[in-house]
């Protein structure tokens, strides 16, 4: 009985710890003062106003949306054939290919960022948006390949044979039987890439130029410079979007079904 109480307390504490900062930042963003005070002197939406009034933040928002959308689309287009090869390919070095594709996951972000900075410098590629797109596509590909591979592994291969058997060519089978079943993986991968691109700091900070700063970089520069909770407002807005996306994913795919799928 006591162990049961302890166990529940632990679980509760765990989730308080987990969600505390996210909840706190929302509270901070509504705080009607530059510095946080307990209890808050009053509630207001002024920092949200500041966020949308700021040319830097709105521009960063625009950059971020554009970048995330571009990267998500390109990444998924690249990830599908790659996942197919990694799961279904018949060639030596398939496992190696898988590991190489996944390798950006373990490379420290700062290292990857500076590596791209050096390489783009040598190639004289100056366009910030292009640099960010290339770097984030490469950085996010592992997430997409992993998510889509997971979907691939869950497929019933006999369904594809059944399609061939019933008269579908390879391509028809792929489009009509395989791709629709990969949708959960594509969705999850897409959401992940989107959010990761919206969120990445340690790579993009090196590659963004004047015109292509994204939200985290703008946020970082803001908190290094200003003391007000505009960034808290931004973080809260992003969290709301994230929660909406996660809820959508849950509705469409079922969170518990998707996560941990073999």
């Amino acid at each position: 009985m006591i162990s049961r109480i302890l166990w529940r307390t632990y679980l509760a504490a765990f989730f308080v710890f987990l969600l505390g900062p996210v909840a706190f930042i929302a509270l901070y963003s509504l705080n009607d003062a530059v510095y946080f005070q307990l209890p808050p002197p009053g509630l207001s939406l002024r920092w949200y106003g500041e966020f949308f009034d700021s040319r830097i933040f709105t521009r960063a928002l625009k950059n971020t949306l554009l970048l995330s959308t571009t990267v998500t689309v390109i990444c998924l287009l690249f990830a599908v054939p790659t996942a197919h090869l990694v799961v279904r390919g018949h060639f030596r070095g398939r496992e190696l290919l898988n590991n190489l594709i996944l390798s950006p996951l373990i490379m420290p972000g700062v290292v990857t960022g500076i590596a791209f900075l050096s390489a783009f410098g040598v190639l004289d590629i100056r366009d910030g948006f292009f640099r960010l797109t290339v770097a984030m596509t490469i950085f996010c590909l592992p997430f997409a390949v992993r998510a889509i591979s997971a979907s691939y592994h869950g497929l019933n291969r006999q369904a594809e044979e059944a399609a061939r058997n019933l008269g579908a060519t390879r391509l028809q089978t792929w489009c009509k039987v395989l791709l629709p079943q990969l949708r959960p993986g594509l969705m999850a991968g897409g959401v992940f890439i989107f959010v990761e691109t919206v969120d990445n700091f340690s790579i993009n900070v090196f590659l963004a130029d004047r015109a292509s700063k994204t939200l985290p970089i703008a946020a970082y520069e803001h908190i290094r410079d200003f003391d007000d909770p505009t960034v808290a407002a931004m973080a809260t807005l992003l969290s709301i979007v994230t929660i909406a996306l996660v809820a959508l994913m849950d509705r469409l795919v079922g969170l518990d079904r998707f996560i941990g799928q073999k």
Partner: protein
Amino acid sequence: MMTRFLTGATRRAVLGALAALPLVASALPASADTDEIYVQIWGTTWQSALQDIAERFEDATGIAVVPVTQASSSEGLVRLQSAGEDPEIDVWFTTSSLAARATQNDDLFLDLPESVTELAPDLVAGAIAPRYAAAYFYPMSVIYRTDMVDAPITTWKDLWDARFANSLAVPDVTTYAGRSLLISAIANGGSIDDIDPGFEGLKALSPNVVMFYSSDATARQALAQGEVSTLVATPAQAKRMRDQGIEVEVATPAPTPMLFDVMTLVDTPRADAAAKFIAYVLSPESQKLISERLNQFPVRKDTPVAEALQSIKPDPENTISFDEAKVNANIGEWNERFQREVAQ
């Protein structure tokens, strides 16, 4: 059930929303094109004073000034250096220390035109160099919360006092061009050429230091939250704190290191317009704004010093300046030694 997760309508809605994102993005405000110059500057400095100056400048000349913020001037420099042929920055605000080092790059920086250098006689000594012009100057000061510090601070040595245990925020070596280290050296009997006492001093100071900061905002926040009671910082920070209703006092113990924040002219096709802006920042009305809004000292001799700064204006005899070449030559090594011996 598992697979019926997208009805046609939902799918179309999701796809439609995705397709619309770039449109929404492009509908957000974008920058204009002609008659613009780009100024890379710290956000707070821009917000406090330069924004107004820029607006007046635009009214006077028709040239719009677009701010490009930098979290620190060294990050700004790396961005400038990485940008190649056209850095898309026309005026870069930095410290005199970093400017002395960076402007040696002939590909990136231009000599100031005569229209700027001819202003030198009206300005304080050292405000104009071949490749940079100071926008304002400031003493390294001590800012403390009157509700947390009982006795006024008068000397640098006071900071070593045990009553300041766990209550200081001091710039790290990379911030304000190593001035914290140099102050420590001088307060402990050393000098820029005899830096060891500086490190010894910082080590001894360490129990009093909560944070060695690299960002003014972090330091201000720590003071506002009561993490620290005392900052080693510039008077501009005190102004920002008071604006938020936090009672602080400013002291300028002797010897007081004086620093310039300067404007450099980047080699771009818009250099003429950029030079006009630099000259405009040095005009009496701009200098007055800087003094009042930013609480930094005007570089024009004839500009009245703001009320709040009157009492802390250091006696010229008590000020001290350092050889920026020496600072630049040593700062990398000082930082490593600082990280090794003091910070950890």
